[in-house]
């Protein structure tokens, strides 16, 4: 049995090599079908990684809540203690300064800068990609000067990062310890993270000057007391999109002096990857369906060529039988020829997709259309699905011609 199997495979390989034209002819449909499959899997994988990266940069890693507490907080330490008690594993301030903060570098004002007060924990909660320097550490809280991490757009506007000053009513020398990559979504928006520390307490939490309008919220995160909280993924607050977490906080709001907690405390899921998964999944299944139909037409092509060639090769197949090939060997040889053809087509399709992905990746990276670390590449699942489907198509398309080859008369074949 093993000998017959091995012999069948060897004959199939030599047969495919000897009949290059037939092999190429059979390949075309499978190349298109397998290529479509690989591209769909590649696109889906890219979409998922893009969605996760987008979510982790903009909202936080999985199970991150945005918590907003409107109104005056009388005991911030108690509030933050309760954020942990309610189930938070990591907590970071995510607060816009109460007053309008200006930034300048080398004596020149840099307009339109979005500033948020944060804790070092934000570096774990969100995906932060440093291009220069480093993220905040606990030691930075001891700094007498405010400590900043700026994005690349702001760094480019400032130029000299060693002569930075910030302030509301007076200028204070600030220290820039790192530059983060633009997210790919913020385009040229200039932003900076300001580390919460004794040196920035006044900037972040001082009551706004009555003559100076408070900085308007930048969209979604404009609460007066804002935090990002990362929960255990199994925490019920993840499933109910923060409702339970809010409820827990409301019950203890009296500890930190917030009145009307029902209307003052809100939390909601900040990470959005999970929500994007479902439509992405439906789209992927739809495209996979189309790709499989394309592959089906490729299968019919290989089957057709297989049937024609078996008829043309009756003498050759009869010669194999005369030389001692068993029916099983011949069956394996004919089926394996179809498998070889399909797998070769699969490899060609894979190479084409790989080249397309490399080209696409170069373009989107060059145009800065994707978050850092998200490249366009054929994933291992695409390779496996592509080559596996190609082999399966070969197997299916080879069985009928092989069965026909077995039915043919050896004596009649030798007479041809």
């Amino acid at each position: 049995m093993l000998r017959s199997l091995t012999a069948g495979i060897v004959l199939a390989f030599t047969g495919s090599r000897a009949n290059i034209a037939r092999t190429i002819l059979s390949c075309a449909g499978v190349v298109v079908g397998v290529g479509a499959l690989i591209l769909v899997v590649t696109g889906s994988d890219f979409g998922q990684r893009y969605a996760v990266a987008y979510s982790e940069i903009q909202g936080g890693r999985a199970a991150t809540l945005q918590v907003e507490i409107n109104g005056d907080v009388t005991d911030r330490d108690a509030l933050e203690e309760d954020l942990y008690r309610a189930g938070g594993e990591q907590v970071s301030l995510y607060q816009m300064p109460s007053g309008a903060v200006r930034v300048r570098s080398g004596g020149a004002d840099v307009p339109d800068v979005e500033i948020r007060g944060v804790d070092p924990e934000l570096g774990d909660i969100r995906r932060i990609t440093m291009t220069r320097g480093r993220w905040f550490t606990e030691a930075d809280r001891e700094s007498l000067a405010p400590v900043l991490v700026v994005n690349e757009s702001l760094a480019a506007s400032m130029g000299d990062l060693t002569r930075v000053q910030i302030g509301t009513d007076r200028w204070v020398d600030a220290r820039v310890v790192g530059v983060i990559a633009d997210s790919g979504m913020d385009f040229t928006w200039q932003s900076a993270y300001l580390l919460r520390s004794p040196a920035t307490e006044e900037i972040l939490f001082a009551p706004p000057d009555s003559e100076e309008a408070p900085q308007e919220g930048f969209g979604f995160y404009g609460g007066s007391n804002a935090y990002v909280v990362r929960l255990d993924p199994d925490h019920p607050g993840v499933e109910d999109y923060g409702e339970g977490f809010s409820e827990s906080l409301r019950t203890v709001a009296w500890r930190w002096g917030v009145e009307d907690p029902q209307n003052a405390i809100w939390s909601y899921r900040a990470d959005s990857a999970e929500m994007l998964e479902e439509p992405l999944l439906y789209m992927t299944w739809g495209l996979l369906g189309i790709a499989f139909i394309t592959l089906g037409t490729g299968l019919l092509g290989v089957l057709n060529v297989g049937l024609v060639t078996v008829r043309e090769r009756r003498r050759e197949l009869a010669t194999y039988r005369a030389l001692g090939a068993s029916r099983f060997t011949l069956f394996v040889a004919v089926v394996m020829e179809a498998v070889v053809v399909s797998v070769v087509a699969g490899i060609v399709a894979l190479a084409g997709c790989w080249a397309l992905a490399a080209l696409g990746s170069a373009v989107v990276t060059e145009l800065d259309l994707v978050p850092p670390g998200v490249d366009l590449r054929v994933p291992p699942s695409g390779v496996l699905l592509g080559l596996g489907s190609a082999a399966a198509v070969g197997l299916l398309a080879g069985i009928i011609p092989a069965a026909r080859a077995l039915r043919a008369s050896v004596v009649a074949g030798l007479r041809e």
Partner: protein
Amino acid sequence: MSVDTPLPEAAPPAAQTSELLRVEGVTRHFMVSGTRIDVLYDCTFQVARGEVVAIVGQSGSGKSTLLNLLGLLDRPSGGSYVFDGVDTTRLGEGRRSRLRGEGIGFVFQQFHLLERRSALANVGVPMVLGGVPVFRRRARARELLESVGLGHRLDSQPHQLSGGEQQRVALARALSREPALILADEPTGALDAASSRMIMDQLLAQAELRGAAVVVVTHDPKVAERADRVVELVEGRTR
């Protein structure tokens, strides 16, 4: 038969005798559109190891049908065919294929070489089927092609070879698994006189060298006269 008549002695196992094959009362008929056509009626003969037997007869006398039966490519309608001590009439398809591959080499009138494959690859095919490892296979194929004078045409494909050369490749292929029997169906039928003589010289020399029996079907009296024995088929019966 009287009770005093002694029983015939049991035939000794074939492997211990010089008998390679025995055909007894073999018949073969075909059904064509509901009509029975008898091709072989009562064929009985033996071939010893190393013996050269020519089967002669007019066209349509059943020579090729008999050769197909001897080569285990076809099954008789009646009678028995014992090859190398094995009654082949009751064997399954798998055993028949194995016996054919290991014990019988074919030389066809039209050569039946595989197109687009080199002489070396063609000679190697029976060894592929026999599971011979690739390095031994190549070495053996090379040695066989050299022995039939084609050491310089190892990589040539069939269309690049003359008829005589193609038949020599076919002979090398037939010898590749050292069969006990070589069946040659009109081996010189497609060749000129000089090539025919050369092929027959090589066929008989190689068979003798390897101790193989040869059964050759032929119309050619010059070929038949070189056999040790001639079996004549007349209207489906051996004489």
